[in-house]
C-alpha cells in the first residue's frame, strides 16, 4: 500500500537487481527509508550537539511531535480517502477557544466543555464531508469555506477576544516534565502512542480502514465493490475535524489560554508531516508514516533551534531537507509505467 513502483532507482531503471527489488518490497510494507532518515538526523544531532541525547531534548521532541502528529492524523485519513482538509487549523482553534472560554470564563465542567467542542468538530466535519461529496465540490474550497465560517463564528461568539484560561490539569497533559500514572513520560506522548496504535490498526486492519483505501484509490470501483463510498468519505472528514478539535483541546492546556489563531501554524505543518511520512493522495500510505513524518520534522526543528540559525536559514534548510527526505521514497511513478 504505498509508493511502490516509484521506488525503483532511476539509474538502474527497471533493471532486475534482486537486492534492490527485495528492498523495494520491504519499503512497500515498512517505511524503512523514513526510519533511516529519522535515525540519521538523530545521530547527526547526537554527534554535533552537546546534550542532544538527554531526556530533556528527547521529551521536547516527543511533545512537539505528539501535537504535530495528532494534528496530522486527520489529514492522513482525509488524504488517504482522496481529499484534503484545509480547515484543520480552524478546528484546532475552535477546540482551543471553546475549552478556554467555557471552562475559564463560563465555569463549565471540563466534560461538558469537551463535549461541546467535540460536537462542533462532528458538525463541522459533516459539513465538510457532505458538501464535498454530495455536490462534488473541490474539497479544498469547501474546507477553506468551512474554515472561514467556523473561525468567524468563534470570533463572533467571543466578541473578538478570548479571555478564558484552560483548566490547569489540562496543562499537565502536554507538559514535557509531566508524568503519566507516576511514570516520567509526558501524558501527551502516551496519548499519541495510543492514538497511533488505534488509528494504525483501524487503517490497516479493519473494514472501515480498508474502505478508506478502496475509496481513495478508485471511487467508482469502490462503489461497485459495495463500499459505502458516501459514508466513508464523510466519516473521514468527521474524523479529521474531531481529531483537530482534540488537538485544540490539548493546546488549550499547552498554552494555558484561548487563542483564535493557535491552529494556524498547524495547517501546513500537518500537511508536511503527512507528506514527509510518505502518504500520498488517494490510498497510498498509513498513519505510522505520518508518525515518522512528525518525528522527523520535530527533530529537524530542534536541530535548527540548537544551531541558532537565522529564521530565514531555518526555513530554507527545512524546505530543502523535506525535499531530500521525500525524494528518497515518495516520488511519483514514471509516465512510461503508466501506459
Amino acid at each position: 500500500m504505498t509508493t511502490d513502483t516509484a521506488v525503483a532507482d532511476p539509474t538502474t531503471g527497471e533493471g532486475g537487481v534482486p537486492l534492490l527489488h527485495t528492498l523495494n518490497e520491504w519499503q512497500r510494507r515498512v517505511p524503512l527509508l523514513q526510519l533511516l532518515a529519522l535515525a540519521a538526523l538523530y545521530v547527526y544531532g547526537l554527534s554535533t550537539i552537546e546534550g542532544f541525547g538527554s531526556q530533556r531534548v528527547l521529551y521536547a521532541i516527543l511533545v512537539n511531535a505528539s501535537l504535530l502528529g495528532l494534528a496530522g492524523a486527520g489529514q492522513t485519513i482525509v488524504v488517504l480517502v482522496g481529499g484534503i482538509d484545509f480547515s484543520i487549523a480552524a478546528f484546532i482553534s475552535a477546540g482551543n477557544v471553546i475549552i478556554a472560554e467555557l471552562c475559564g470564563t463560563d465555569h463549565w465542567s471540563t466534560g461538558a466543555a469537551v463535549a461541546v467542542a467535540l460536537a462542533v468538530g462532528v458538525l463541522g466535519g459533516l459539513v465538510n464531508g457532505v458538501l464535498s461529496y454530495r455536490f462534488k465540490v473541490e474539497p479544498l474550497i469547501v474546507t477553506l469555506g468551512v474554515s472561514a465560517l467556523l473561525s468567524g463564528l468563534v470570533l463572533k461568539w467571543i466578541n473578538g477576544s478570548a479571555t478564558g484560561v484552560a483548566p490547569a490539569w489540562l496543562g499537565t497533559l502536554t507538559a514535557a516534565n509531566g508524568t503519566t500514572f507516576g511514570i516520567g513520560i509526558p501524558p501527551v506522548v502516551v496519548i499519541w502512542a495510543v492514538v497511533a496504535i488505534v488509528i494504525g490498526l483501524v487503517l490497516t486492519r479493519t473494514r472501515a480502514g480498508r474502505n478508506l483505501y478502496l475509496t481513495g484509490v478508485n471511487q467508482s470501483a469502490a462503489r461497485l465493490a459495495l463500499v459505502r463510498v458516501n459514508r466513508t468519505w464523510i466519516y473521514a472528514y468527521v474524523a479529521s475535524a474531531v481529531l483537530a478539535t482534540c488537538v485544540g483541546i490539548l493546546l488549550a492546556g499547552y498554552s494555558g489560554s484561548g487563542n483564535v489563531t493557535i491552529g494556524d501554524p498547524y495547517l501546513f505543518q500537518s500537511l508536511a508531516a503527512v507528506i514527509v511520512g510518505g502518504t500520498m493522495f488517494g490510498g497510498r500510505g498509513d498513519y505510522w508514516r505520518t508518525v515518522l513524518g512528525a518525528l522527523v520534522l520535530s527533530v529537524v526543528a530542534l536541530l535548527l533551534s540548537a544551531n541558532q540559525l537565522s529564521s530565514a536559514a531555518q526555513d530554507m534548510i527545512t524546505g530543502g531537507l523535506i525535499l531530500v527526505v521525500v525524494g528518497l521514497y515518495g516520488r511519483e511513478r514514471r509516465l512510461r509505467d503508466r501506459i
Partner: protein
Amino acid sequence: MNALDFLRGLLGKRPYAFAGLLALLLLVVNTALQPAFLAFGNWAAVLASFAPLAVAAMASTPAILSGGGGIDISIGPLLTLIDIVIVANLLPNGLTSPFVVIPVCLAIGAAIGAVNGVLVAVLRFQPVVATLCANIVIGGLATQVQGDTVPSGSTSWTKDLAGSFGPVPGALLTIGAPLVIWWALSRTPFVKALYAVGGDDATAFSAGVNVPKVRIAAYSLGGLYAGIAGIALMSLISEGAASMSAQYTLLAIAAVALGGTSLAGGRGSLLGSLLGAASIYLINNLLNVVRVSTLWSTAIYGAMLLFAVVVGAVLTNARRRAVA
C-alpha cells in the same frame, strides 16, 4: 424552467460561466448599494487593490491545468519575494526603470517556476510536495532579502500602476498582461498541449507529446505570472514584508476552483480564475459596503463562499448528470 435549463447548458459547456455570473451579480449588488463604486474615478483604486489577488489566481492556474495533481502552493511566497526584491534590492540601488525592474521580476518568477516544474516533471516529486518545499524555501529567502526592517519605496511608474496612466487604470496592465500572454500562447500549440497533458498525461506521452517540457513550461508560466503579481502588489503597497507570504496561496487556489477549473487538471481556464478572484474580491467588498457588524464578517464571508460553490455545483452537476 427554460431559463434554468439554458443556464445549466451554459454552465456545463463553459465552466467559468458560473464565476462570471456570480461576479456580475455581485458587481450589480455592490453598485446598487453604492453607486459610487462604479464611478469612473474609483476604477483605478478598485482595480489596483484587486490586481494582486487576480494575478495570483491566474498564476496558480497553469500548474493546476497541467494535471497529475498539479498545484503550485509557492505562488504566495514567490510574489512576496518579488515584491521585496523590488523595494529592497532594485529601487534602493537606482534600478528604477521599468525596463530593468519588469524583466528582472519576470525572470526571477519564471526561473523559480521552472525549478518547480523540473522538480515535478523530471524528478517526479508530487506537486504538493515540491511546491510546499518551495513555499518554505522561498519564504525563507524572502525573509533573508527583506532584512531586519520592512523595506519600502516606490517610483513614478509603480505609483502609476497603482493609480492610472492618464485615463487608463494602471492595474489594467497588470491584470491584462497574463491574459495577453495566454492569448499569444494559445496561438501556438502550447495551450492545447497543456490541456491534453492535464487531461491524461500518459495518453499525451504515448502520442509523442513532450510531457516534461509542457509541465515545466506550465510552472514557469505560473512563476512568470507570479512575477507580475509581485509587481502589482509592490506598486499597491510600496513595501515588502515576508510575513505576507501566506496570504495569497490558498485564496488564489480558491479563486481558481471557484472559476470552474478542476483541481484534477485538464479542465478550466485562465479567465475562470480571474472571474473567481473577482467573485472573492466582490464578496469581501460587499461586506464592507453593507457594513455588517465587523465581528460577523469572517463568518459571512465563509458562508457566502460555501453557498456560491454549492449553488455552482448544483447547477453544473445537474448538467453533467444529464449528459452521462
